[in-house]
């Protein structure tokens, strides 16, 4: 991020290569339209480049920050599109989009239950690693240190857990998106 702020345009290229597939996939699912999704991705990266200071690393990862930006802009894009066309079917889509904006308190409560249930299904060793990594803010090496296991083992547990959570939770997350 310091490179972005310092005017290093190669940093934008690197971040695009790393995160554009995530953001584009997200935007495609929300907008359902290739062109809108491309506009969303362009807006997210342009804003990151022009205002890199808006990302606060103390509040989370760049991936989550960009994900939230893409989500919000996608919902906005859908709303704009609906207003523009004013077709009945689009109005229905608008209603759907408005019920499910970026996570609000109501949505978060629902997700808590889902996440708790999903994490509860994990084997104990993976469960603890996930709790440390996602909810206590530990890095992989800190997870390894807390659990007294090699870093490679911690990484492996997190990867396995993430694959399972992805399988169990992604449908709900994607539906909400």
């Amino acid at each position: 991020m310091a490179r972005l702020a310092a005017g290093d345009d190669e940093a934008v290229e690197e971040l695009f290569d790393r995160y554009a597939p995530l953001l584009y996939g997200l935007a495609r699912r929300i907008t359902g339209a290739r062109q809108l999704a491309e506009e969303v991705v362009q807006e997210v990266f342009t804003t990151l480049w022009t205002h890199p200071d808006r990302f606060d690393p103390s509040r989370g990862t760049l991936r989550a920050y960009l994900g939230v930006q893409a989500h919000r802009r996608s919902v906005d894009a859908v709303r704009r599109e609906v207003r523009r066309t004013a077709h009945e079917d689009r109005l229905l889509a608008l209603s759907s989009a408005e019920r499910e904006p970026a996570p609000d308190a109501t949505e978060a409560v629902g997700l808590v239950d889902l996440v708790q249930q999903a994490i509860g299904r994990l084997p104990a060793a993976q469960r603890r690693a996930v709790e440390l990594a996602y909810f206590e803010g530990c890095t992989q090496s800190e997870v390894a240190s807390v659990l007294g296991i090699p870093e490679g083992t911690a990484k492996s547990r997190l990867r396995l857990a993430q694959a399972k959570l992805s399988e169990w939770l992604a449908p709900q997350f994607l539906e909400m998106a």
Partner: protein
Amino acid sequence: MTAPLQPLEEQALEELRYALAQSHTQRPPVALRQRVLQAAITARPPGVATGTGPPITPIEAYLRTVSSLDALLSQLTDDEWHRPVLRDLDIQGLIGHLIGVEVQLHAAIGLGPPVATSPDHVASTQAEALAQAGRLPRQTHAQWAGLVGQTVEYAATLGPDEAMRAVTLHTFTIPLPRMLVVRAFETWTHEEDIRRATDRPLSSPDPARLRLMTELAVSALPRGLATIGRRQPGRSARIILTGPGGGTWQVALDRGQAGPADVRIVADAVSFCRFVANRLPQVELAVSATGDSTLAADILAGAPTVALD
């Protein structure tokens, strides 16, 4: 069943949501990459760090720098004026050194009478430095302030063509605006010398001034390599100096145009200026280098050799 996830904050939830979304990515259209990059650099041209503000002239940079030193000198007690500061000089002697440089600059630009000089920046001003002994500090201060004031006034009266004529001082032959940036860099460096000698906090230049100084520091890197006998014809570096006043430069490490970078060096802008001024040891410079590590080591070894001292 695991214990309740409390507190499960929205932030943690979003981290998990987008970590999981990572496994549902979709390759964007090939053309989107170029379009995004073009839109980005159109919205904000690359090269200049955010928070730098609008550019200022070299005259303004020198004026701000001498004003800052002038304010500092006005705070010094008589005892502090005699604190050891650099080489064998006390602060009064150091200001005498700056008087010597300014007198020689006046001679070079036709503002003052010709004076004997030598290519050695320190040796050529040593007489003025030593001549301050026995004078009142305020006399030394006033003489220096008067000289730099004349320099700034003179430079401000020059037309564009006249201002760009080459000026030779010590080993430099460069246009006057660039010479004023060199003078600003040296004056700031000595202000910090005085701050260290009197236990005052260091003072970073404002971003607009720093921008001119970082440009100067980066442009001096090829000379540093030549000085240590490690010229690098045909090779290039990408220098990224972070923080307001910093920026990004693709630098040819010898003559000619810069090509693809063989090495990328990232450092804090103010720290890099202190490093190039030979006031910050390399071991204390937080620097990240990727690419040709031998080349990076050579660049960093050569950089402080351009310091005027």
